[in-house]
């Protein structure tokens, strides 16, 4: 029986706990939060035998094998380090750490101590993402990706999180070096980081505060970001937008022969054939081919739903399961360390450029609405 503990008892901890409960062969043995009431309520709701306010007490008394860290990102490094020092495997919610140095230190420590470490990029394990990976491995693209385009939309207009963030000048998200972006873009960046090669891709970033936020008097939060990346062979664009509709969570990837469009929200994978059709067939045939694929995706999703295999947080369950298997059976890690580091490196470069860039001249700012 794998003994699991959760540090940080907020909303995200609930998602982790729900998934862990459905995984056979493991048990949540303790939860921890600096706010005792929060730890207490989670323990009570999930029938967890013990709750703590200090990580060290959790490690000493609950003796978990693996610790899930679901605290604000500023604390990921120190808590992760304590857990690794105590010989525990660690699952850290995204974003992995505040900066690359912290990420490197944690990974070195895990390797040195022969412990497992992962990050909560669970969209990498959705049905659509796994299907996409299968197609890439089968060679559908015709080689390595030539170009990728990752979209990550975020609806700032409503929701408790957005209200809390806008209303609180001292909100922990504002205190992150990369602000709102740091808490949100890692899902979208990791999608392309998986396929970029080398440690140091070239990055060009441009970010600004949307007219929507500026009209609310907000000037500090950057909620629109455009990034170009190049690893010497492949290129990638990344778009983070709070204003663009639809609110896309999408990856488009193009190889030397074919392309793929993966939509996380719709859970669809569409094959885009590279070879053109003859003459007017180019205008007549592809819409039918796409229609057939969309119908196939829809039927496939329904089949999974009927088999009760289509939960909203399915990707998280698969990620946790795969991570636990790596711990218990010595299987490979769900997310390679080089991918975690590449994601951290790209994010650090983006934030560095945004910090150092001067505000663009007014003429290039989008007009106030």
């Amino acid at each position, binding site marked *: 029986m794998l003994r699991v503990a959760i540090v940080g008892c*907020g909303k995200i901890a*609930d998602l982790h706990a729900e998934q862990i409960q459905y995984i056979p062969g493991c048990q949540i043995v303790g939860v921890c939060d600096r706010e005792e*009431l*929060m730890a207490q309520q989670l323990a009570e*709701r999930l029938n967890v035998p013990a709750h703590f306010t200090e990580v060290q007490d959790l490690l000493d008394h609950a003796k978990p094998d693996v610790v899930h860290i679901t605290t604000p990102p500023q604390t990921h490094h120190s808590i992760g380090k304590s857990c690794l020092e105590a010989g525990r495997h660690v699952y850290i919610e995204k974003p992995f750490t505040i900066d690359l140095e912290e990420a490197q230190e944690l990974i070195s420590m895990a390797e040195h101590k022969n412990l497992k470490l992962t990050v909560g990029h669970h969209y990498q394990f959705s049905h659509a993402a796994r299907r996409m990976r299968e197609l890439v491995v089968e060679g559908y693209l015709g080689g390595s990706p030539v170009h990728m385009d990752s979209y990550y939309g975020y609806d700032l207009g409503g929701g408790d999180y957005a209200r809390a963030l806008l*209303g*609180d000048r001292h909100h922990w998200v504002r205190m992150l070096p990369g602000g709102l972006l740091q808490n949100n873009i890692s899902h979208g960046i990791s999608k392309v980081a998986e396929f970029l090669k080398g440690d140091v891709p070239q990055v060009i970033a441009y970010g600004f505060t949307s007219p929507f936020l500026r009209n609310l008097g907000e000037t500090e939060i950057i909620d629109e970001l455009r990034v170009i990346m190049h690893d010497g062979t492949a290129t990638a664009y990344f778009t983070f937008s709070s204003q663009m509709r639809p609110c896309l969570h999408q990856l488009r990837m193009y190889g030397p022969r074919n392309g793929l469009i993966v939509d996380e929200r719709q859970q669809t994978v569409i094959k885009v054939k590279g070879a053109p059709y003859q003459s007017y067939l180019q205008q007549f045939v592809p819409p039918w081919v796409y229609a057939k694929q969309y119908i196939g995706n829809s039927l496939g999703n329904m089949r999974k739903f009927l088999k009760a295999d*289509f*939960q909203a947080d399915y990707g998280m369950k698969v990620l946790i399961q795969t991570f636990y298997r790596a711990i218990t059976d010595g299987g490979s890690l769900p997310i390679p360390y080089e991918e975690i580091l590449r994601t951290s490196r790209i994010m650090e470069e983006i934030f560095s450029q945004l910090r150092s860039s001067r505000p663009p001249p007014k003429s290039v700012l989008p007009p106030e609405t």
Partner: protein
Amino acid sequence: MHENHRIIGPDDRILITGSNGFIGSRVVDTLLRSGFSNLRCFVRPSSNLTALQAVLAAAPGARVEVMPGNLLSREDCAKAAKDVAAIFHLAAGTTKNFAGSFLNCVVTTRNLMEAAAKFGCLQRFVHVSSFAVYSNWNIRRGGLLDETCELESRPVERAEAYAFAKLKQERLVVEYAEKHGIPYVILRPGAVYGPGVRDLTKRVGIDTFGVFFHLGGSNQIPLSYVDNCAEAIVLAGLKPEIDGEVFNIVDDDLPSSRKFLRKYKRHTKGFKSIYIPYWLFYGLCWLWEKYSKWSEGQFPPVFNRRRCAALWKGNRYSNQKLKDRVGWKPKFPFSEASRRYFEYLERTI
């Protein structure tokens, strides 16, 4: 209320949390109209203060301090609770997740009560709770639900974050009040309605996938018109010799769900509704519960038998205790209250 029948004087400072909310702004209005002019209105920094500003504009001579802050900050709580004689605590978290709701109901209340205890001058902590804390699981259909009834013992099964948080919040109020010797009163309003709120209470039915399912049928709806509710809160909050008591707030002449829905439709754009009898919806909730468990949460258990009973089983409600002990009676009878409400709906929808 005669001055001798109040626990504090008109110049004593009163803190109102959630003062910009639907009920909170009316509580501020009622306090001002009752002659209390030294108010501290605690608001979230991000709040749109329209409702509160409209109330304050009508009382230009009052010493009202609008204090933006966050009850999760102990520092803000200390500033808010400093030198106050009474606290009307209406702020609550309404997020749909358990952790968020708990944080914004329970942790905030703990911070506020600890801050108040330090100053030692608080004469009454008026806690505004909710009907959501009750369980009618063991009460037959049509049975009386009053202050003596049991509270929900299995809130997690009910899968209602708000009910869970309000229950824990109430328990914390009692615990901290006893620990720190803070006099308190708990008010549990029913379904509060009035100008400012457009949506029908869930006790009438639910709007889902563009269809309105009428689930209340002939049930009595525990309505409380917002001005009646605010007056009950203020009276009970300042009445002597009722420390530690709990009061339900519902109006007289409570309409049936069917009657209220009919009127609502007539005064809005109108919409189609489908009536589902209680026994049938209870059965569907049972199936939903089973499916949720079997499918490992593919549909979360938001429809379940305990929640179905709490909202749609149908009970009778009483405001007798409030009338007897506090001397409250609803200023606006249902005919007048509903006229004002539906006029508001006609204006705004």
